[in-house]
């Protein structure tokens, strides 16, 4: 038993490290080796760094640069002017209007001329750093679009298990595990089975099945591995099967066409947000036990009032943009 646990822990560490190691590969890809780096400077400027000096008359003519958002190749963005830095290695493309920094952009250039030599045409991807993007998905799911406080999902478990702090934390961790596992499986099934075979009309049925599979597996394993925690969850572990937060995550990642890393981050953020919500709520409810609450409001009503106040506080995060 313990060797099995050790082996599975080692395996998960391996998986996580492979996951982290493969992240930088998914960053920006320059399709011309002469162009070294691309980045946004501000709302109206894209910076391109070259490996060597480029010619001024090529670099400063806006007609040589075509920029579009990756998703709409037909809509060219208006390039106002192009500037060359004094060392001639950096080109600034300026636009007449604000561009959407969250979207990936593509810059296509006519053959780059460097000191009279032709370095070949280039098509470059410009996007925000991938780590920042993943982090913004995580924080977005955890705080800005917290599933409990801004989307009002999963309230039955939220109210039911937030009476005591340790149950709440245990429940939050179980939720996170179930969410991450089911989100990864459902991402795989959605991308490689449902979508290619045009079976996406079955997504709700399949996702419910996946969630109940994960819950049943957690139930079986937890009963053996940690009976005390299992007893503390009681009926709520089974309630996870029919919980809307757990179903909402696969549906969100399917409709947003997230890739594996993004879905992992979304599930982690949603689970972490739920854990945070449960912890905050249980802390305040333990405090409310001692408070002098009017008899009409004692118990559940005051818990709902407190939930509403938390939701108001979380509204402060709305509209925030990170990175």
């Amino acid at each position, binding site marked *: 038993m313990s060797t099995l646990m050790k082996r599975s822990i080692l395996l998960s560490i391996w998986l996580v490290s492979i996951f982290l190691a493969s992240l930088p590969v998914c960053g920006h890809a320059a399709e011309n080796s002469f162009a070294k780096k691309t980045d946004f400077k501000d709302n109206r400027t894209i910076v391109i760094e070259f490996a060597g000096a480029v010619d001024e008359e090529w670099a400063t003519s806006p007609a040589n640069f075509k920029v579009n958002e990756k998703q709409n190749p037909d809509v060219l963005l208006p390039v106002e002017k192009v500037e060359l830095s004094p060392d001639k290695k950096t080109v600034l493309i300026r636009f007449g209007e604000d561009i959407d920094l969250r979207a990936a952009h593509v810059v296509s250039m006519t053959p780059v001329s460097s000191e009279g030599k032709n370095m070949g045409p280039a098509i470059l991807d410009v996007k925000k750093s991938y780590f920042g993007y993943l982090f913004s998905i995580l924080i977005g799911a955890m705080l800005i679009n917290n599933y409990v406080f801004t989307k009002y999902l999963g309230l039955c478990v939220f109210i039911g298990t937030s009476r005591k702090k340790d149950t709440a934390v245990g429940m939050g961790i179980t939720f996170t595990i179930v969410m991450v596992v089911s989100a990864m499986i459902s991402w795989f099934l959605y991308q490689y089975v449902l979508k290619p075979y*045009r079976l996406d009309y079955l997504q709700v*049925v399949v996702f419910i099945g996946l969630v109940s599979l994960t819950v049943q597996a957690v139930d079986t394993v937890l009963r*053996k*591995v940690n009976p005390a925690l299992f007893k503390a969850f009681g009926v709520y572990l089974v309630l996870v099967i029919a919980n809307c937060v757990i179903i909402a995550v696969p549906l969100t990642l399917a409709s947003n066409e997230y890739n594996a890393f993004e879905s992992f981050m979304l599930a982690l953020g949603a689970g972490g947000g739920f854990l945070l919500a449960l912890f905050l709520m249980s802390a305040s409810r333990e405090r409310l036990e001692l408070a002098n609450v009017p008899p009409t409001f004692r118990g559940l009503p005051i818990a709902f009032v407190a939930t509403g106040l938390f939701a108001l506080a979380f509204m402060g995060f709305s509209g925030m943009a990170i990175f």
Partner: protein
Amino acid sequence: MDPVLIKLALGGIAFLVCIGLLFGIGLALAAQKFAVEANPKVEEVLEVLAGAQ
């Protein structure tokens, strides 16, 4: 009816049957691996009790 639609419907049924079987077998194996030995007397006593609730 459009044969494409029939194909889609049949494909859906086949897919659901497949993942149902797969999940079922997986869960059965897990249940066997992580089996908890329960006291058989608990069941027997529960049988004898009235059990309206």
